[in-house]
């Protein structure tokens, strides 16, 4: 497998207080691919993901050290502004969480508005494009002024994806984005992920191995804060190198 230098981590450690949650992880992600991270709950996969857009450090008592390179630039170096960085590395969370008191339109436009873009033609364009990319435009184009929270759960999650896409991120982090959704909405989002990788690099944390197998190019297996195995999805699920991986994917774990 060719390792691209687009986005990678070197010896990344993350702590909660004195607890080491992620231990010396080295990973690279190629551009325009989908990488899945699997592992039992509490294995540090979500924490690892939150280190990639420097959100982990916002938790009181949390600490990170190590290197995360985005196109050879360490995002943890002193001259990087986490605010600007988080625009380039978008994130979608487990529970759909449109901002209450914001309309559908404003939910998508909010990132651009924050970035200082006021011109309504640009905003309208961007909102429509993002909603189309999130496969939501046809469903909401007549209710752009309704509250974002008035949509169904699956629609809300796609709204959050559109919101993240609107600011043109390079990378999209997804933290178990379908775990709160019904099967039909889940299928829609999985379909969407495969479509979206043409535009952004996607890293998705999931507790659902079938999902990882369906949508990802590479898969990583985490256990107790360690990266156990990382490789092409087809290979990891059929011929894992580590027997802990094998035990996990065959359901014999714990």
């Amino acid at each position, binding site marked *: 497998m060719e390792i691209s230098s687009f986005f990678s981590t070197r010896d990344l450690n993350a702590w909660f207080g004195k607890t080491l949650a992620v231990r010396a992880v080295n990973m690279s992600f190629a551009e325009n691919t989908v990488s899945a991270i699997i592992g039992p709950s509490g294995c540090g996969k979500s924490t690892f993901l939150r280190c990639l857009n420097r959100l982990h450090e916002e938790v009181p008592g949390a600490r990170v050290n190590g290197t995360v390179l985005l196109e050879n630039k360490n995002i943890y170096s002193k001259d990087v502004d986490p605010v600007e960085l988080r625009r380039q590395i978008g994130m979608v969370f487990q529970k759909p969480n449109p901002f209450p008191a914001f309309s559908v339109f404003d939910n998508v436009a909010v990132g651009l508005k924050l970035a200082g873009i006021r011109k309504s033609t640009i905003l309208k364009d961007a909102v429509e494009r993002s909603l189309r990319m999130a496969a939501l435009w046809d469903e909401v184009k007549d209710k752009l002024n309704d509250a974002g929270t008035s949509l169904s759960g699956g629609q809300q999650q796609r709204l959050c994806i559109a919101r993240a896409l609107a600011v*043109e991120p390079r990378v999209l982090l997804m933290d178990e984005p379908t775990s709160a959704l019904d099967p039909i909405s889940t299928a829609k989002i999985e379909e969407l992920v495969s479509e979206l990788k043409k535009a952004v690099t996607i890293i998705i944390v999931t507790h659902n191995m079938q999902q990882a197998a369906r949508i990802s190019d590479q898969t990583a297996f985490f256990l107790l804060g360690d990266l156990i195995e990382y490789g092409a999805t087809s290979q990891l699920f059929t011929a894992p190198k580590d027997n802990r991986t094998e035990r996990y994917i065959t359901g014999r774990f714990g």
Partner: protein
Amino acid sequence: MKQKDYRIALLNTWIEKSSQRRKVINWGVYVALSLAAILALIPLISVFSFVTFRGFSALDWDFFISLPKPVGEIGGGIANALVGTAILVGFGTLIGLPWGFGIGIYLSEYGASKRASAIRFTVDLLASIPSIVIGLFVYAAVVVPMKRFSAYAGGIALGILMVPTVARSTEEILKLVPIHIREAGLALGLPRWKVILRIIFRGSLGALITGVMLSVARVSGETAPLLFTALSNRFWSHRLDQPIASLPVQIYNYAISPYDDWHRQAWGAALVLIFFVLFLNLTTRWAMKKGTK
């Protein structure tokens, strides 16, 4: 793809332009919020230091055991006001405690119905009625018919003021008792009222007393409702149907007087009052913290 690159390049220039301004605003807000916190604490610090420094010089043994001196004479103390406050608060507790406990038990044990939420709402409203209105009401309902200010009237006013705080703290505390304890009691074949009184209420008694102490702390500083009811008195008074002195009213009367010596005593009395109120507040907090651990 080309079009996309152009769009992103445009976006980046926009963002570049605004990012410095956003950072500055962000820091400005940090400063403003910290200033707000400092500004809010200045009066607290100022009140405490003035009360402590000015009040301390007024304190001596005599201050606690003497009666007020007539106008013009230097000296005198707050002995009758201390006793008066104790009597008024004690009398108020006699009214506020059972009534508040009753409501609290009702709200926690039978509080799921719509009717109970309506009562809960009115309890909160009673808590927000200005204390001077309660005083005025007691004045018109008790003082005017009796044709005299009295400790009774003052106690009734303070009692009414205690009800909402006692009731709500009782409710909150009893709700902390896990449901399985109730069920265990009922499963023993005990009737519900016995479970409530013997197991739940008695089991939480320590915490409940803490709640009562907080409301005692609150009413012992109340002045306005006492003006209309207990009035004040320069002498020892042990009869409940007579006007009676109290610490807050004495602070008020001394503070608005034109005499320096009374001002000095007002600060001294304020120090005693604040010390008492804070002592109750801090010990109850400490007890609560210990209780939740």
